[in-house]
């Protein structure tokens, strides 16, 4: 039984204008079907590079990404990507409904089915009334919801999210975090969520992968044993939450300092549930 996603030995070297930058050295981990995994790491540690390699948007220098056992060489049809810059990811010449519908047209779905999916997706993000608005008429948080709706309507098996809430204000971020968790529990999609916000990673994830500084390797994997029912008010003051986030914080500080990682403690398989 294949894990939903398997990354093995991923390495990415950027070459250009006489400089060679090894952004990602060796990343190996798996994600099981239906998991919500968060990736955190110090700034510039190649989180985005990793995610784009997984999405097939960037070709790794070596190593591979397997989606249900099949190699990812280009953007696969059952994977959706949510970008951080929602303002530049949504097409401003199309209305919200058209934006959400566009990838479905590409899939060749019938019009009735497309309309159904669009309406359903917008409803689940709470924007069913925004169908005929233009993205730039909406607030930042609402625009990101549209982007999420677009990803949902695509009916992906895997959802990759690249620091999607970094560019919205704190209150909107809290709402959007709950939205993602709610959608995840409802639909059982496998989600890989990249963030620089430690609290967010612990709040959202079932498992947190801490990445080292560049050249990046997996520094540690952490199981978040908080209850499945989480809310902004109570979960964040739970003692276990504080322990976990402190631990992650320490790991990241160590990563920033470049403290050598004890390779024996690095595990590349999820701990048994």
């Amino acid at each position: 039984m294949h894990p939903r996603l398997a990354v093995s030995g991923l390495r990415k070297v950027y070459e250009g204008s006489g400089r060679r930058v090894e952004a990602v050295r060796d990343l190996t981990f798996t994600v099981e079907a239906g998991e919500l995994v968060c990736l955190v790491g110090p700034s510039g540690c190649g989180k985005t590079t990793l995610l784009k390699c997984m999405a097939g948007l960037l070709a790794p220098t070596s190593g591979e990404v397997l989606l249900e056992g099949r190699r990812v060489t280009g953007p696969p049809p059952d994977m959706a990507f949510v970008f951080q810059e929602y303002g530049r990811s949504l097409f401003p010449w199309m209305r919200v409904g058209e934006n959400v519908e566009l990838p479905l047209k590409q899939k060749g779905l019938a019009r009735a089915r497309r309309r159904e999916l669009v309406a359903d997706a917008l409803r689940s993000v709470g924007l069913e009334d925004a169908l005929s608005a233009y993205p730039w008429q909406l607030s930042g948080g609402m625009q990101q919801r549209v982007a999420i709706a677009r990803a949902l309507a695509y009916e992906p098996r895997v959802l990759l999210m690249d620091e999607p809430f970094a560019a919205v204000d704190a209150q909107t971020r809290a709402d959007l975090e709950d939205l993602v968790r709610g959608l995840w529990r409802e639909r059982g999609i496998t989600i890989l969520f990249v963030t620089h916000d430690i609290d967010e990673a612990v709040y959202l994830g079932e498992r947190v992968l801490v990445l080292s500084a560049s050249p990046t390797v997996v520094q540690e994997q952490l199981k978040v044993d908080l209850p499945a029912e989480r809310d902004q008010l109570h979960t964040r003051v739970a003692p276990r939450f504080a322990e976990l986030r402190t631990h992650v914080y320490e790991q990241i500080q160590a990563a920033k300092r470049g403290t050598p990682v004890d390779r024996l403690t690095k595990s590349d398989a999820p701990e048994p549930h």
Partner: protein
Amino acid sequence: MTGTSLRRAGAGAWRRVLLRLLFTLALPAVLVTAWWVASDGSTNVYWPPLRTILKAFPDVWTGERLRTDVRPSVLRLLGGYATAAVVGVALGTVIGSYRRVRAVCEPVLEFLRAVPPPVLVPVIMLFAGIGDTMKVVVIASGCVWPVLLNTVEGVRAVDPVMAETARSYGISGPARLRGVVLPSASPQIFAGLRQALSIGIILMVISEMFAASNGLGFTIVQFQRGFAIADMWTGILVLGLLGFVLSVLFQVVERRVLGWYHGLRASTRRSP
């Protein structure tokens, strides 16, 4: 709101409309009146009284002349412009889409575009004679450059995040061109089309002044040569009017096609 403040608000709206009307018409009215008054008793050959010019208008620009001179001019312009638009956008899209092609073509295109369009008239006259074809070819050859180069720039400068989004959803090929690249480039393309319009008008007039047997440019030159000054002035006014009308039409079309772009800019300006 109370009754009185509602009434005041309504009166305020009326005042604003009237004020805007006043601003729009005031200066033109003043200028026209000044022209009328200043030229009224004029005996200067080159500056006939405005009254004389306006009187000559209906005599000169009869329905017949509109058909024999104005219509061919406008048709030549539209023919050349439309050709240039289609060729410019098509070629520009191809060149802009492939980095290597762009690098190869760039110096040559920059040179060709730097050649002042009027010099095309004598060149094209060599092999196209002096008929309608020549004029349409001249107009097209002059108009194509701003369209082409702006299309190249617009296609090249598609936002990388947008391009990646399209790629991540498997949008490629003609769907990508139609749904992402061209709309994204359209503001830049329209800038090129606007420049092309002014160049087109210039070339239309010049080609007719240089070598023609009918047309607006031809007519005005004939008046000038025959010293029919008042008639010449009416021709200048008609040409000015044509330029104005075409510009307004262009803006109307642009506002419709690029409505989303103006909205986007307005919203980013409000909250950067």
